[in-house]
């Protein structure tokens, strides 16, 4: 077992790489996203029950869940921790409009996400070399972090729709799919999981309101909450 000291040192380095002056994309947001990913993986049986030895709480996991292995679970958790490293507090549109050096470096495409990934890779190289050295893990991590670019959101929604159609057509039996199709599906699932976790904070706030209000009021409140909530950590 990796000593806690090493993991703690790694996490302290990660924490230091986030800016406290940034109101939303700070370390608090990261742990929130990490925990959401953790919860999704628990409920789909991709992580063992928590706490260790507790009864399983998986609830009709999706067939595609079987595609995600322990390796993918760890990669997703690692990706969540570093997915906003060094966030400056402005978005891609702002950086592109200003022709900022970072936007020039990354050719205006997923500027921040590419930066987070590159910066985080250096943290991994220094503090968790086993994760950095594994080419497959790095590839999946890059895919997952880049997936958090909301500029690509609708592309992911189209891809998810296509996947749902394929699953319906094959009656959820994915065993006959080609290895390439399975890998692409795995990558897509990982991207969707981290995307969902990344924006889950608003839903978790809404959920607590829904618990206390009738459905009609909750629906109206939910819309208002989304519009006027400062989304501040």
């Amino acid at each position, binding site marked *: 077992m990796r*000593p806690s000291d090493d993991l703690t040192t790694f*996490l302290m380095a990660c924490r230091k790489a986030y800016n406290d002056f940034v109101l939303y994309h700070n370390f608090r947001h990261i*742990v929130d996203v990490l925990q959401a990913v*953790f919860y999704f993986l628990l409920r789909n049986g991709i992580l063992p029950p928590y706490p260790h030895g507790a009864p399983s709480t998986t609830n009709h996991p999706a067939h595609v869940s079987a595609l995600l292995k322990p390796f993918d679970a760890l990669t997703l958790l690692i990706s969540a921790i570093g997915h906003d490293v060094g966030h400056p507090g402005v978005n891609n549109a702002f950086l592109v409009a200003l022709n900022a050096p970072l936007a020039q470096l990354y050719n205006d495409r997923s500027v921040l996400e590419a930066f987070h990934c590159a910066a985080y890779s250096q943290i991994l190289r220094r503090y968790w070399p086993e994760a950095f050295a594994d080419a497959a893990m790095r590839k999946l991590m890059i895919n997952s972090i880049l997936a958090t670019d909301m500029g690509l959101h609708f592309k992911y929604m189209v891809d998810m729709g296509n996947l749902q159609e394929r699953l319906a057509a094959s009656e959820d039996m994915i065993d006959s799919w080609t290895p390439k199709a399975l890998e692409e599906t795995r990558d897509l699932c990982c991207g969707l999981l981290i995307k969902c976790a990344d924006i889950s904070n608003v839903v978790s706030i809404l959920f607590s309101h829904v618990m206390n209000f009738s459905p009609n009021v909750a629906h109206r409140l939910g819309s208002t909450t989304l519009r006027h909530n400062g989304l501040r950590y």
Partner: protein
Amino acid sequence: MQVVESAVGTWSFSAHDFDADELLYAALVMLQHALQMPELEKWRMSTGEHFIAERTALLLSELTCDLQTTLRPS
């Protein structure tokens, strides 16, 4: 810390309930839970090996510098 350990397994987890050190501990708990899976042994390390390797590398580097200084023609 027990509060943190309990909270990380629930949907009602709220990062606003915890300070920076508690959040770090929460992340640690989640990573350790995943790393206990036997398939992930590769990403584990035996106790102290990381620090021993680092200190050994640092010591060798210092010795090399000293040796070069000693052997440099005066």
